[in-house]
């Protein structure tokens, strides 16, 4: 059974009206359990829309979406996935621990069980000493780690991330990437990851999905065979640069066709 199965999905915003937008056309994508898949493409090509469709925050205009073999809506109700956005979206009136416990609270877990889990998650993201802190007392990188802990709190098999490191500085960002890889390896989580950065996509992913705008569709899927034990040395690897070039060329094709911009080349 695949983790995500998107079949012939179309999404038209404001269908039938003057301002209709064809956000996604004929999208097919299958993600296997344990895989790390990145979505990359120029601004407005529908990356966030595709992620929201998988999360069932939007309904497709046509086509079908299965998550863990269930319809996306059922998967959302069962909290089969966790989600993290560019803004950490922590609730400023809750302590760090209670932010992480939020999804568990909504699932009706009792307090002792929640406490134990938030403790475990804080250890996982290396913030063991910050349970009682308020979010605004943390740095941006730490806040983002709390958001990841919250997304993983109910031990979902699938993690959906929309530019989670987009607001972080380069150093913190590379550090967070390595940590995310370790966490996912340890918890064997499947990830669908939206990014603007080619090196980020290549460093993290098993496969990079290249998309193009107007109308939004998948133009290329590039395999990244860098093995599973990636570390800081991987970033210096010739193979790493090879894959970056491959993704860049695929994107250049997109840009030639669409005349679009918005990809960071770092």
């Amino acid at each position, binding site marked *: 059974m695949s983790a995500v199965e998107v079949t012939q999905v179309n999404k038209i915003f404001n269908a039938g009206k003057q301002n209709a937008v064809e956000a996604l056309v004929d999208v097919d994508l299958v993600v296997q359990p344990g895989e790390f898949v990145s979505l990359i493409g120029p601004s407005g090509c529908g990356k966030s829309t595709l992620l929201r469709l998988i999360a069932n*925050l939007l309904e497709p205009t046509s086509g079908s979406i299965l998550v863990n073999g269930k319809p996306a809506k059922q998967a959302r109700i069962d909290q089969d996935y966790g989600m993290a956005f560019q803004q950490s979206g922590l*609730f400023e*009136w809750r302590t760090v621990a209670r932010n992480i416990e939020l999804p568990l609270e909504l699932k009706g877990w009792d307090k002792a069980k929640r406490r134990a889990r938030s403790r475990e998650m804080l250890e996982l993201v290396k913030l063991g000493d910050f349970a009682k802190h308020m979010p605004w007392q943390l740095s941006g990188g730490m806040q983002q780690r709390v958001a990841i802990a919250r997304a993983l709190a109910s031990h979902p098999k699938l993690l959906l991330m929309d530019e989670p490191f987009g607001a972080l500085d380069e150093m913190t960002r590379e550090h967070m990437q390595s940590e995310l890889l370790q966490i996912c390896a340890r918890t064997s989580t499947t990830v669908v990851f939206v990014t603007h950065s080619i090196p980020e996509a290549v460093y993290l992913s098993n496969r990079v999905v290249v998309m193009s705008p107007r109308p939004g569709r998948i133009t290329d899927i590039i395999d990244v065979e860098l093995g599973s034990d990636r570390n800081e040395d991987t970033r210096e690897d010739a193979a790493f640069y090879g894959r970056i070039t491959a993704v860049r060329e695929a994107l250049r094709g997109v840009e030639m066709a669409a005349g679009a911009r918005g990809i960071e080349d770092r």
Partner: protein
Amino acid sequence: MFIVAIGLVVAMWEAYKAVGPARGGDLLGFKILPRTNDQVMPHVWNMVKRLSDPVQRGTDQTIASVVLSGVWYSFRLALVGFAFGITCGMGIAVLLTRFKLIERAVLPYLVVSQTVPLIALAPLVAGWGGKLQVGGFVWPRWMSAAVLGAFLAFFPVAVGTLRGLKSPSASSLELMDSFASPWHRTLFTLRFPAAVPYIVPSLKLGASAAVVGVVVAEISTGLRGGIGRLIIEYARQATSDPTKVYTGIFGAALVGLGMAALVAASDLALMRHRPKGDAA
């Protein structure tokens, strides 16, 4: 801070009394400068001294104790009105958040409701006193004053709460959706906590509005026992006893202060763990 402010007001009062024209004066052709004789502007210390005088010759009940009991009575009325106003205001805000259509239909009426002069409404509501009966419950007269307080208090609370309930970002709302949180859970775990920085200042406005509503209602319906009634009684005696009416005004200010202190305390409690300085 507060003591300093009171001191300043007293100093300004006495300073104007010392230098201002004794028979009043004109400014830009209007007769607006008040006369400074003891009849119109008594000395502050005389007002304070008056507080300890007996109400009538031959009784040992002081004006202060009468005023204070009036303050206590009006304060409780204002409190009931305020509580009722908060309930209605927040209830309306929740409804308007839930049903967007209602918002467009109802909001204009809320605004219009605040343009109806309270004085016009007061006799109508006062008329319910003793007559209206719901089941075994007879509408007491004091309830009318509380309702008028609520009528003024609900509006700022409704507007502030509505703004606050709508303040969470789209991604916060999506996050709650991704947890499959039903609407009422999202209301209490996200929307209300996010609204607190908007609700607190609206409570401050609502509290003083409730006091104004109650005092005006007491005056215009002649309800006994409260500070409003004392003010008109004392005002009638103003020509012979000018300091007495100010004791009533002190009392009214005291009611307002009490309410303000209450809201300030709730402010402290509610905003305890919030980041400092960026509240709306």
